[in-house]
């Protein structure tokens, strides 16, 4: 049971708070999605956990220990921070061999992770010739090298092709299934919800949510009902009388917010409004996430004038 524990963690860069009194824990046996818009402090938090940056205040520990206190840390914690970390002039195998040697990891692990990440056939090619997706796989191979209990992966799906994205999802699920602690950052909710069990969401360095994915969906995703009728005037009148807010689509379809099919169906039957179509529609998870982080976005684009 190795958890990542972040307590009152803050980091300032020249007066700007990149991480602001953050407290959360990442538990073993599940994939924790680490979400937030760009600039929310996800990467900074990961660097603080890995002892690469020094916190302004607070602390981060792995299994109760500061990262810097770990002996031969690769066999306990694996991290992917930047796919560009491997030198372009070195082969993937040499890159991993040097890393393995520093922590007395046997060379057969190098070949095993190259196999696992699908790089075995290109392992002796120089990294310069790799695509972004291949470099990302090499970064994941480096994280897996020491067969660690804890994994921190910063945007691992970046640059992966659709096949690679399915591969990373399966890999993350398997790692969590083996009882490991897996923290995966992303700025995309849709992508994260596909593999995460738990969410830690940041905005401007502050914690916005620390919740299981299912609870987040129940609490935040607003139900929508799509309804179509022959008598749109009667329908609009009915909706207005019950204080229901609806958007009007061009073909006469109405999308009703904060409503349930069960309620609306009964109301329409009672009022004698003919029903052509009545269907529940979940507002996307992405929208719920954007609602949450909208106020906390570091770089908000100005609305475009048309």
């Amino acid at each position: 049971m190795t958890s990542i524990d972040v307590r009152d963690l803050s980091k300032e860069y020249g007066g700007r708070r990149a991480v602001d009194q953050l407290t959360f824990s990442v538990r073993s046996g599940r994939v924790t999605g680490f979400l937030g818009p760009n600039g929310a402090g996800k990467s900074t938090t990961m660097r603080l956990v890995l002892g690469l940056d020094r916190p302004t205040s607070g602390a981060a520990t792995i299994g109760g220990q500061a990262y810097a206190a770990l002996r031969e840390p690769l066999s306990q914690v694996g991290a992917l921070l930047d796919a560009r970390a491997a030198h372009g002039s070195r082969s993937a195998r040499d890159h991993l061999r040097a890393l393995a040697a520093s922590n007395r990891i046997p060379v057969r692990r190098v070949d095993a992770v190259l196999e696992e990440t699908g790089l075995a056939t290109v392992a002796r090619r120089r990294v310069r010739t790799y695509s972004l997706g291949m470099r990302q796989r090499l970064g994941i191979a480096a994280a897996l090298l020491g067969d660690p209990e804890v994994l921190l992966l910063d945007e691992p799906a970046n640059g992966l092709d659709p096949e690679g994205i399915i591969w990373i999802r399966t890999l993350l699920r398997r790692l969590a299934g083996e009882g490991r602690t897996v923290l995966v950052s992303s700025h995309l909710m849709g992508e994260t919800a596909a593999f995460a069990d738990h969410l830690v969401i940041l905005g401007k360095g502050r914690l916005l949510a620390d919740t299981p994915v299912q609870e987040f969906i129940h609490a935040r995703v607003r139900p929508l009902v799509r309804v179509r009728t022959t008598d749109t005037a009667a329908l609009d009148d009915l909706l207005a009388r019950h204080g229901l807010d609806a958007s009007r689509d061009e073909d006469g379809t109405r999308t009703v917010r904060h409503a349930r099919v069960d309620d609306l169906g009964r109301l329409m039957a009672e009022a004698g409004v003919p029903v052509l179509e009545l269907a529940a529609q979940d507002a996307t998870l992405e929208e719920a996430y954007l609602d949450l982080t909208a106020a906390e976005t570091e770089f908000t684009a100005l609305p475009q004038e048309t």
Partner: protein
Amino acid sequence: MPFAPVLHAEWIKIRTLRSLLGALAGTFLATTAFSAAEAAAGDHTDPLYSVFFGVSLGQIAAIAFGVTAVSAEFRGGALRLTLSAVPDRRRWFAAKATAIALPSLAVGLLTGLVTLLVGKALLGTSGPTWTEGLRGTVGCGLQLTLMALFAAGLAAVLRSGVATLSVLIPFVLIVSFVVGDLSGGVADFLPDRAGQVALHSTWDGSLGPWSGLAVTGLWAAAALLAGGWSLHRTDA
């Protein structure tokens, strides 16, 4: 964390980068070639320096070796990966410096020996004595190693290969060929000059061959300490 595995990792990094092997080969070639040219054409008033003249240019390749070995860590987040494997930064930097020093010394001594043999063959009876020559060989090996370490330390302070090379290369060229002519002054105590006293048959300045190498050694130690301190202090 034990030191040997970290040193092993740093050694793998050095021998798997062609640019680093190229810099070592360049150190050998520049030193022997320019030395041979001077021995064949020079006036030989200082027989030992006629043989080891090429060190003044070979040390530029040694500097490139030291700088490149360190600056490779400051590209694209490489240092973060390195330090996540070896969180003890001072131990890591000591391993890096050792992995730079050992091949530099081996190549430097070999370079010195070849340079001496070529020089003695070219100069014949007007060449340096064997005693002088061996001092020159050791001096050549140490001077090249110390310049590589001095450059490595500076690269860790400046965190950039381009910045370090654009400071050091003009410095070595200008000091050696412009300020260096006014010998006997402060210029003798500059890192690239002090160690080269060991490559002269006679020297008028206040430094001797070994004290000169010790001065360059102090420069290298100061640069490495500054580099180690900067690594320890700064966020990776």
